[in-house]
């Protein structure tokens, strides 16, 4: 099966183009670099905030920046994104608010509210449950006759859940414009993909549904972008779903509460070239590395992140009223009574 699904690359680890004749779009490369840098800064800041007790448990995505940025950049404004808890690199790139993204990791529902006009679902915490949502939402677009698509993120572990299977089957039967974007980062918390499945690839799971699938180097942002674009294009044209396996590597811990040295062999992952380093090499190779621009971007983004942290920390405190007010459109009488008597008790009545 591995031969049937070779890992597609545009550049190699040294940032050399695999096909030297290929034309690369320098504006695109700069955009990708910009967003990967931006989300890396967010990620590192979030880890440090967690260490200082300023936000809650946090799942870093470092190492997966290419997979997330490369894929989400292939979408348009009206498309839909279905992230997991580890995909706020993608949602930030797609247009999610940075302050609210920080708020999410501080236990705030405000973090699930997307900007108006941006179709971003709340991060799915129960594994694989978001997959059918992306199928249904894409199906709705198809029914309405638009060319919008839905892209759903999920991990290697998610492929073991029933919802992965049921979602892919629905997408296949109803030919919905859904892009199934798997980030195979080799681990589901501590469980390596070799124990998650006996098959060597995730891409081959598309065969069960006659869903076209492809395996891509998830640390090669150009390859991810290109393959996602193809899948999105097919979906827009009414040619149905695609399964993309992006082979990548989670550099850090599963979450800030996790200690990967307990279960990952020390040497594993050592040879992985970080996707941003790879992109840097490419840019240097292709003479796109403009030190001044790089420094400016860095400063600008560091500032953006700092400002967002400050805004998060100065955000008005969570209202106990919000416990009750969004359960139904209209609060049932008995729930309203619970609300009133609680507010009375805490002196907010």
């Amino acid at each position, binding site marked *: 099966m591995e031969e049937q699904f070779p890992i597609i690359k545009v550049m190699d680890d040294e940032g050399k183009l695999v096909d030297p004749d290929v034309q690369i779009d320098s504006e695109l490369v700069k955009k990708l670099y910009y967003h990967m840098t931006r989300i890396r800064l967010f990620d590192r800041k979030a880890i440090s905030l967690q260490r200082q007790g300023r936000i809650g448990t946090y799942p870093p995505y470092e190492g997966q920046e290419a997979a997330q940025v490369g894929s989400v950049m292939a979408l348009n404004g009206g498309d839909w994104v279905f992230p997991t808890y580890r995909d706020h690199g993608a949602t930030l790139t797609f247009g999610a608010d940075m302050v609210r993204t920080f708020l999410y990791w501080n236990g705030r*529902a405000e973090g699930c509210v997307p900007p108006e006009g941006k179709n971003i679902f709340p991060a799915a915490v129960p594994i694989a449950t978001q997959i*059918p949502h992306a199928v*249904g939402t*894409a199906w709705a677009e198809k029914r309405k006759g638009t060319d919008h698509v839905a892209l759903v993120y999920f991990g290697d572990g998610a492929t073991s859940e029933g*919802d992965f299977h049921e979602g892919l*089957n629905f997408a296949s039967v109803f030919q919905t414009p859904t892009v199934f974007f798997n980030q195979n980062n080799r681990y589901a918390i501590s469980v390596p993909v070799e124990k998650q499945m006996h098959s060597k690839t995730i891409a081959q799971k598309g065969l069960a549904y006659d869903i076209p699938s492809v395996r891509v180097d998830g640390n090669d942002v150009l390859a991810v972008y290109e393959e996602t674009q193809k899948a999105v294009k097919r979906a827009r044209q009414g040619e149905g779903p695609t399964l993309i396996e992006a082979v990548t590597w989670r550099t850090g811990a599963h979450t800030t509460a996790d200690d990967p040295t307990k279960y990952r062999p020390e040497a594993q992952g050592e040879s992985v070239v970080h996707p941003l380093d790879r992109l840097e090499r490419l840019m240097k190779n292709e003479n796109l590395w403009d030190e001044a621009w790089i420094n400016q971007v860095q400063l600008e983004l560091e500032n953006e992140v700092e400002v967002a942290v400050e805004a998060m920390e100065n955000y008005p405190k969570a209202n106990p009223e919000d416990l009750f007010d969004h359960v139904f459109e209209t609060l049932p009488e008995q729930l309203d009574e619970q609300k009133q008597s609680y507010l009375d008790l805490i002196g907010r009545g």
Partner: protein
Amino acid sequence: MMDIKMEDQKTQTKTTQSLTMVQAINDALKTMLEQDETTILLGEDIGKNGGVFRATEGLQEQFGEDRVIDTPLSESGIVGTSIGLAVNGFKPVCEMQFMGFIYPAYDQIMTHASRLRMKTMGHYSVPMVIRAPYGAGIRAPEIHSDSMESIFTHMPGVKVVCPATPKDAKGLLIAAIEDPDPVIFMEPMRSYRAQREEVPTEKYQLPIGKGEKIKEGDDVTIITWGAMLSVAKQAAEQAESQGIGCDVLDLKTLYPLDRNLIAESVQKTGRAVIVHEAHQTGGLSQDILSVINDTSFLYLRAPIERVTGFDVPVPFFALEDHYLPTAKRVLSSIEKAVHF
């Protein structure tokens, strides 16, 4: 189905037809498919076959495969994709073939359908209905006879509705479809064809959250819904022949409960017998008991009686008549309450 013109109280001419409950449900679905193009039906065998109970008979023919959709055999898939459809402009009405087959979808309902509005502070909502025929008494195979409303009444963010008559079925189902939040719509399958009633042909809604007093009496309040209503009524009649007057309440909505209806009646009678076919432990009877405790403690003249399915799995059908509450058991509890 016979069309009859009837004069209603407001001297307005209304059209009704004599329908069984399953026909009334069919009529409600048809009404909504006609009047709201975002309404779509999804389920197993609901298309050509018209549903295993014929609840969707003729609807695919009339509205097409695109609106009355035979899905793969995949309850989590049905509910999960419907959440996506609901968020993106549609009003999915999903049929679970029997309530006992809703369990694979429990996760989707619990972790998403019920919470999406809360999670996003109202930005996304899930206006969706899950229809589920429930209950024992029709000699169905294993798992086909469960009555597990409690796993949904305990789930914040969903409403639970259960009609007992054809007219209520239509009005409540339309209300459920028009409700902006997820509704579990339980259909008492043994009442599907038990009774005909004049049902308005027009579109109408009955309020979710309101029960009804079906019968008036002074000595004891019998509280029930769905398929058990007829059992309760039978017991009430037998009690009256012994001179015991019964208020019989049909709750119709299981969450949120019509607490006023319950309180008013129990404050009058001082006694209550709650009847449902779900298991007793964790059954809705316990919640009703707490409504009475909270509202009518000083009025109570006897412990509250519960006549329910036993705390045993719903059995294979040879024993289901022993599992289900009977008029005899209800009567015995009425007597116990009155002679306390």
